[in-house]
């Protein structure tokens, strides 16, 4: 038995099968909750694999983390303040181009990412072949093909989650190079951000958001939402109805 619970966040575009995967992983033993102050609901549940306990969090589907809708702020704040042990980005195998936008954004925030390519059955039907090895090499993180509705690939996904949670996987997330002007700005801000925030937050990402004038992020950093402060243990303040 392990002595701690690992947090696994499910992220992805709307309608990519996150909740389907969530239900497969948690066996429908979900606690749903309404985050105070937001109209957005999220679900969390538990999953046991190879003796370890995982807290699975189903985040709202978003196309981005930067457009400042309530859903996107919930997802962004969760990554930023909860810092899940593993973030699984669930992407639609039949619309990779669209879905990878969010995946790249997540890779800028955390290196503990697994890309789960869902709806592989649908892709097969449409004659779409995905070279997951090549994609994993390009993204610098594990890529696991699944079909959540048919419960295919779930064990492989959980094994990868297990390996990442226990520090057995070293990732090299694709880091986007911006124009020289932006890179100069990042370089200038980086030491200041690090001094202010320490090592607990993704400094390059925060510098980028500052350059972008992301007022919503500044607000969140000034006042980390109470419910998301790690020490407070989010369980307690989620107001979740436990319906085991």
């Amino acid at each position, binding site marked *: 038995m392990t002595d701690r619970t690992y947090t696994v966040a499910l992220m992805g*575009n709307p309608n990519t099968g996150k909740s389907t995967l969530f239900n497969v992983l948690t066996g429908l033993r979900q606690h749903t909750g309404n985050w105070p102050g937001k109209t957005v609901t999220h679900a969390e549940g538990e999953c046991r694999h190879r003796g370890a306990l995982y807290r699975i969090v189903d985040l709202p589907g978003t*196309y*981005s983390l*930067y*457009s*400042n809708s309530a859903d996107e702020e919930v997802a962004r704040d969760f990554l930023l303040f909860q810092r899940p042990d593993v973030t699984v980005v669930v992407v*639609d195998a*039949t*619309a990779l*181009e*669209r879905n990878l*936008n969010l995946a790249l954004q997540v890779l800028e925030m955390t290196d503990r990412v697994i890309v789960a390519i869902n709806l592989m059955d649908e892709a097969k039907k449409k004659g779409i072949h995905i070279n997951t090895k090549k994609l994993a090499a390009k993204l610098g993180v594990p890529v696991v093909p699944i079909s959540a509705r048919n419960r295919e690939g779930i064990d492989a996904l959980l094994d990868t989650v297990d390996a990442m949670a226990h520090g057995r996987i070293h990732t090299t997330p694709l880091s986007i190079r911006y124009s020289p002007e932006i890179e100069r700005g990042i370089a200038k801000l980086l030491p200041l951000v690090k001094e202010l925030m320490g090592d607990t937050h993704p400094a390059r990402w925060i510098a980028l958001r500052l350059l*972008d*004038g992301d007022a919503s992020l500044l607000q969140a950093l000034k006042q980390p939402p109470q419910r998301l402060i790690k020490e407070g243990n989010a369980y307690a303040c989620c107001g979740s109805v436990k319906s085991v």
Partner: protein
Amino acid sequence: MAPAKYCRLSDTKPGDRFRIEKVDVPDPVLKRRLLDLGFVPGGEVKVGQRSPLGDPTAYRVCGTTIALRKEESDYIYGEKIHHD
């Protein structure tokens, strides 16, 4: 302003196909949102149905249907794709 040879996405009709040349939005947050929704230069849009009240309109872009209001599609410039 985008050059006059481009038309706005809001000027298209259901059934039209449109190639995006420029997303020229004064509000950076809206610009970001449109790009994130898949309205990127070079991208192709298929114009779907208009809601009964005339707004919003459904657009098929990057494999998904997205509804935009006129004050959003006004900022997306490009050209209609004609079939031969």
